[in-house]
């Protein structure tokens, strides 16, 4: 794993050497405002739904006309997009996408892109240090908008990616009134993991701070994304370490398909996934992905955390419920490898009965779920150990919405395609009932063996269970 990261780093550096010649383009033509704003180096481009890719009109702090010139809409929300460290000195390919998505969802809103590219293309520690100045720039701009135009800060939503998340946090801590919301998109880890709250993104920086952690692999401090929770709600998709579809094999496939143009994206695939998850939440508003509060990744993997009581579940992204717990809470979910990312989570609980005395380790099973709308067949899962007369709980998820559950099939796979030991005496257990809790619908379903008791034998035919009870969890009685 470590070597893979090193390889990616090397790839990144090589890329930088390829593109440095092009990097100078954006650094010139500084736009500066009057008196108090002379030291503002960051630029604020109000992009339009018609031109999501170019900075054609700048809001210039101190220059009142600039705001009217760019047709700033004073009565709607404003999204402020803050990019992160850049090896190329240019905007990355996600920027237009993160401009287009808010406009699709809130057509009257203002989407401003903060250009701090010249400071963001330095050596990482230097750029990391610049987040303080960038945050100060953004705060000055926001305060000016509030004072000059009485623009309500309650309408301001900062979207900061990587180093940009910490710049957003600093901006939020310096505005005269709190901004409505900061969304931290995989806030940078190096130099910030152990930093004090004032110099990084923290819950105090806005009325509400939500954070997506998507690339937190490695030891704390060395991980690209910050590992510790830094908002009111911190969501760790797929455990937060690494994202599906981001492995090397996938990278090679994409290079083969699209050429080297998008390589910068692949290097930071998991890091950047935070952005695409947020975009997904803006575009697919009707069915948001749900995240579930859990004390550990391991407990989540056992399916123990699919509860929605007491705000234990929340929507990922734009439609999040603004829950401010006393202590920050970590939330988890699984996702698909592409948009739409939503999956459906199930906790499965099985009690294995029998006289088998041996404990079996790393046993592979396949479960199939059949519902009113669709089915999801042969979902593999591995139990680290099983022994008789114990109950096991685990998490499975499906990419399709199968509707209300009706039937379930379970198969215990043999170790190899043809295993002699299993042939002579294949181990088996009896199962009466299987309990399933659906996270998305908050329903508990009991499946019963059709024959009262089923014999599940390793390497033999699958056994069928039919629904024999269900119950909604979220509805209060009375």
């Amino acid at each position, binding site marked *: 794993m470590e070597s893979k990261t090193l390889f990616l780093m090397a790839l990144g550096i090589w890329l930088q050497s390829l593109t440095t010649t092009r990097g100078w383009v954006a650094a010139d033509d500084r736009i500066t405002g009057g008196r108090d704003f002379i030291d503002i180096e960051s630029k604020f481009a109000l992009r339009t739904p018609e031109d999501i890719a170019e900075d054609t009109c700048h809001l210039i702090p101190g220059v009142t006309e600039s705001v009217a010139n760019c047709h700033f809409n004073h009565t709607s929300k404003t999204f402020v997009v803050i990019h992160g460290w850049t090896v190329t000195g240019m905007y990355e390919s996600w920027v237009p996408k993160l401009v287009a998505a808010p406009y699709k969802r809130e057509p009257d809103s203002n989407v401003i892109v903060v250009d701090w590219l010249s400071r963001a293309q330095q050596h990482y520690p230097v750029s990391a240090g610049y987040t303080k100045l960038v945050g100060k720039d953004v705060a000055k701009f926001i305060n000016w908008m509030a004072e000059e135009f009485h623009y309500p800060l309650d309408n301001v939503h900062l979207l900061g990616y990587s180093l940009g998340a910490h710049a957003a946090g600093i901006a939020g801590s310096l505005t005269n009134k709190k901004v409505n919301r900061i969304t931290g998109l995989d806030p940078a880890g190096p130099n910030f993991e152990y930093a004090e709250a004032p110099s990084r993104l923290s819950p105090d920086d806005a009325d509400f701070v939500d954070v997506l952690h998507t690339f937190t692999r490695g030891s704390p401090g060395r991980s690209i994304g910050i590992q510790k929770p830094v908002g009111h709600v911190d969501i760790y998709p797929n455990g937060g370490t690494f994202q599906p579809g981001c492995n090397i094999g996938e990278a090679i496939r994409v290079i083969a398909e699209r050429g080297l143009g998008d390589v910068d994206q692949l290097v930071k695939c998991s890091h950047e996934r935070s952005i695409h998850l947020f975009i997904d939440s803006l575009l697919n508003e009707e069915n948001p992905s749900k995240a579930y509060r859990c004390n550990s990744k391991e407990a989540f993997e056992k399916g123990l955390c699919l509860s929605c009581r007491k705000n*234990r579940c929340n929507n990922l992204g734009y439609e999040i419920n603004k829950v401010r717990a006393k202590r920050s809470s970590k939330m988890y979910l699984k996702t698909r490898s592409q948009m739409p990312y939503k999956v459906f989570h199930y906790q499965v609980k099985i009690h294995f009965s029998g006289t088998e005395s041996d404990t079996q380790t790393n046993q592979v099973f396949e479960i199939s779920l059949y519902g009113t709308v669709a089915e999801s067949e042969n979902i593999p899962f591995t139990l680290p150990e099983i022994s008789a007369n114990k*109950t096991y709980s685990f998490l499975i998820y499906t990419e399709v919405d199968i509707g209300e559950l009706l039937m379930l099939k379970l198969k215990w796979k043999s170790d190899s395609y043809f295993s002699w030991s299993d042939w002579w005496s294949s181990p088996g257990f009896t199962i009466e009932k299987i309990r399933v*809790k659906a996270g998305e619908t908050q329903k508990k379903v009991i499946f019963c063996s059709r024959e009262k008791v089923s014999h599940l034998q390793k390497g033999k035919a699958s056994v069928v269970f039919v629904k024999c009870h269900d119950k909604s969890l979220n509805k209060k009685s009375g």
Partner: protein
Amino acid sequence: MKVPTAVLLALLLCQQPGRGQVQGEEEEDNDTDFGLDGYDDDDEEEEEEASVTTGGRGRAVLQCYSCQALHRGESCDRIQNCVHSHSFCKAVISHGNTGSGPLTTYSTWCADTCQPFAKTVEGTLMTVTCCQSTLCNLPPWQDPLGRGAGSPQGSPSLVATVLLSLLPGLQAVASVGG
């Protein structure tokens, strides 16, 4: 109205084996040896099934039979007083071939939502039925007068015969649909 309820209560109390089974399940629900890091709803789940009381004066509480995976001919002896949010008696009937021949199972309970439904899944006809009146969810083969299969007069009732002839038909409809 008092007298029949009391009779039912007495009946329920006498059915110790049946009751014991259900309680056993609830206990199993709670024997979570998963450690403290999970938020299992079971830990704090309120007892949703209303207890059998005579005190609910003036408020009509739906009563449903409540049984799991009965085979054809087996009667359901357990009656449940539904909580107020549960306004349906829901039943799931499965009918299909198993290793040991054709098999029909019947499960029924109080439910807050219910959508009638029929679909053949992997060769098994799954039917969901819903009804909203007291004890409307008797297994189709059970004598409505309360004499279960165990009693000498427990001959197959008309309802059971109807269902028996109905099931293959439903299966055919579902197959055509699929």
